[in-house]
């Protein structure tokens, strides 16, 4: 189809887009944040066609990459390192969309999936009529 977009996600890519996160930033050794990679101009390190990230997002991505390289760097070829950098960068927009979605303080995380099979039968205000067609924001 070739309709690739920043928000496009292929089913087959669920692990590829898997990439990163915020807590890792706080877990990363502080000295990693001062490594060569962060003193190098960020633009120079971004893969071609990489999504445009905010400076904060880019810093976060860089921290994750450095965390991987610090722990496992000797295992990778230069090509693999470049691929890891690309994967990490491409995953960031997905994480930012996820974080931006509003959830209530009391919203319960389903720690183990329990399908809603025991729901109470009660009218739902959102289900009275089918919704009109509309394109999803992220597709």
């Amino acid at each position, binding site marked *: 189809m070739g309709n690739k977009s920043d928000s496009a996600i292929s*089913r087959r890519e*669920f*692990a590829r887009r898997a*990439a990163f996160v915020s*807590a890792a930033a706080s877990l990363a050794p502080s000295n990693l944040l001062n490594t060569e990679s962060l003193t190098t101009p960020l633009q120079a390190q971004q893969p071609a066609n990489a999504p445009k990230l905010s400076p904060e997002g880019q810093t976060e991505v860089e921290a994750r990459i450095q965390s991987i390289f610090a722990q496992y760097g000797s295992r990778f070829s230069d090509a693999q390192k470049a691929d890891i950098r690309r994967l990490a960068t491409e995953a960031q927009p997905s994480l930012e969309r996820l*974080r931006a979605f509003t959830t209530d303080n009391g919203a319960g995380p389903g720690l*183990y999936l329990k399908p809603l099979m025991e729901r109470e039968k009660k009218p739902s205000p959102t289900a009275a009529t*089918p919704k009109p067609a509309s394109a999803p924001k992220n597709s």
Partner: protein
Amino acid sequence: MSGEEIFYLSVSELAKRIESKKLSPVDLTQTYLDRSQKLGPRFNAYAHLTPEIALEQAKAAEKEIQRGHYRGPLHGIPYAAKDLLAVKGVPTTWGAKPYADQVFDYNATVIDHLSRVGAVMLGKASMIELAGGMGYRFASASLQGEAKNPWDTTCWTCGSSSGSGAIVAAGLAAFAIGTETWGSIICPSAYCGVSGLRPTYGRVSRYGAMSLAPSMDKIGPMARSAEDCARIFAAIAGHDPKDRGTVPIDKGAFTYSPSMELHSRPLKIGWLTNAWKSLEPSVAKPIEAATRLLKKYFSSVKDVALPVGPWEDAGGTIVAVECAASFRSLIRSGRVNELTDPLGQIAGYVNEQYSATDYLQALKVREIAQKKMDSLFEAFDVIATAAQPVPATPLSLNLETGLVFPDPLGGIGNICGLPAMSVPCGFTEKNLPVGLQFVGRAGDDFAVIQAGRTFQSHTDWHKRHPKIH
């Protein structure tokens, strides 16, 4: 009936012959084994055949039936199991080189269930390595090599239940067992022109199955018809104390008989307007024809849109984190580098970096999605759309760059554990199958089966098969 046609008979048709003793389970098993030995390598369909087990089970079935002890519609029926299901004493490779010599000393619950109803295991179906959990760039991401589509061997079967799709489409077994975390039953069923059921999460025990993302992994049948899927599902569904993810006893079991449909409710269909950004023209045509049939044979068909939200992002996060945890030792030991696919060799390192807070946010989003979808199903019994927006893709395609499109239904359907079925609904001008997908409310597997059955009672796409010589 030609010699070839017997390989494409449905489970229901084979069962009639076996029950009436017009067809010997041993003969049927031997002919399927011969065909699988001859043609299996052509499609890279099997991880390995198990002729000793098959013939032993077939002889036992025949003996019982001869004595008048007929166990039911799967008695004496040959099948293949995806190679991530443990079978005692038989290699279970998970499609991956690091596990090439792995042998379990117990059976997966699904294997035991099928054995109990007298089904005959021909062998283990090939699959994408680790069911694609580490990501993959090419169809060749498998210990068994690229699975070739029986409709066109220059095309892929889709994954990760790739061998299961090829086996059913090529008539190498009467049915196969596949698994889905995200798309791995629905997509191969569509690409291969077979009927596939992704059950509600928790209705089929995963005990003895490779764990990829435990809160999303599901096991289901791939077969020649929705009715066959129902019969197989009835045999494998149910609570299992060995799998804490299974639903309670009163919600897990499934029974099926064709007469149930006489008393079934008229189905209200919601036709999804935003499941795919666009359909490839060759797919759009059969899908348009299918929608006309739906309007003719179902009680109502109305447009509906999926709720908007970061469902794919949540699903991707859940899969990434749970997969990294499932294969932590593989990643940390460095043996992940033994995987075939260049993407699979490195994605796990990236997945390891996800934070707990993002994972929990994904789980919160899941609960919101569940409620939104449950509300949507107040107005509809099933929602429907194309199973895939494209037909089977070339074997050499780079899936990272050449097959990228949003899949909100796959995202929300899988994070909510909703049942789904893909049934064949036509062909492209290049004679590649196109699938129609039905998705139902959690627990209402019968609705998607009924939708598939109804569609197939007015069409014969599911009876077509590739010409194989």
